[in-house]
């Protein structure tokens, strides 16, 4: 099998690992921070292998639904789940804006403690993805990582200004 496209995001939090772990596994804490500037409603959260996190994000009249199914849970070090965009019936669905975006992303979060701080690592990989989904994800990740986005950002803005 060829290597899967992978995206890794790292972030250090100035808090002990047990506390950071709680913010990812307790519904009232998780709904506090997950989702930027939107109202996050957690309809179900069962952080155990086979359990699900049913998440709704609301802004205005619109809602986005996501369905996560936990695969591995090792407190306070590691969480693995399958992450999908969902319809209002909590069934995995294609991204309306980008049908080739992988329907299911294998999401791994690791929590490492260092000097009272927590180094968090978030890893995404397409799960059971079609070739089109793999290509789409790989292109997007190539853009975010070190590539074309930084160069294109300014350029795209500049050209859009020129055209408008």
């Amino acid at each position: 099998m060829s290597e899967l496209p992978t995206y890794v995001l790292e972030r250090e939090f100035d808090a002990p690992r047990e506390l950071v772990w709680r913010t990812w596994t307790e519904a009232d804490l998780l709904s506090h921070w997950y989702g930027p500037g939107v109202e996050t409603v957690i309809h179900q959260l069962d952080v155990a292998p086979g359990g699900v996190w049913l998440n709704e994000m609301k802004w205005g009249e619109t809602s986005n639904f996501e369905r996560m199914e936990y695969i591995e849970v090792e407190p306070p070090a590691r969480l693995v789940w399958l992450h999908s965009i969902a319809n209002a019936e909590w069934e995995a669905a294609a991204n309306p804006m980008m049908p080739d975006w992988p329907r299911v992303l294998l999401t791994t979060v690791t929590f490492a403690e260092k000097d009272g701080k927590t180094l968090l690592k978030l890893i995404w990989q397409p799960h059971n993805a079609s070739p089109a989904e793999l290509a789409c994800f790989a292109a997007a990740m190539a853009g975010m990582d070190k590539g074309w986005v930084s160069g294109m950002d300014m350029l795209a803005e500049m050209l859009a200004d020129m055209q408008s």
Partner: protein
Amino acid sequence: MVMQLSNSATAPKNLDAIFAALADPTRRAILTRLASGEAGVNELAEPFKMSQPAVSKHLKVLERAGLVERAIDKQRRPARLKAKPMAAAVSWLEDFREFWSSSFDQLDDLLETLKQADMKEPPNE
């Protein structure tokens, strides 16, 4: 996982085709070259050490995705970058990145609050 906050109304329907076109490093390089101005197939072929037919093929993919247009009024048919679809693809990714960086900023604040609450409580035991 990605929000459609900012541009669901204005985004082109063919983001898929755009990302498929961007999946190839040569095509990304061609776009980067076109960012500094229009160019004909000859000019594009040279730095990539590619045949003209190969470059033409890549240009066709980029054209179909709406990222590039070719002038029809000139012999050399220079290719030129189309900014808006490119901007849509970039902003889609920006939304993705923004989702997590903003969420993590909110998590920072929450952790700060929790730590302060912890300190006020008497220690367990």
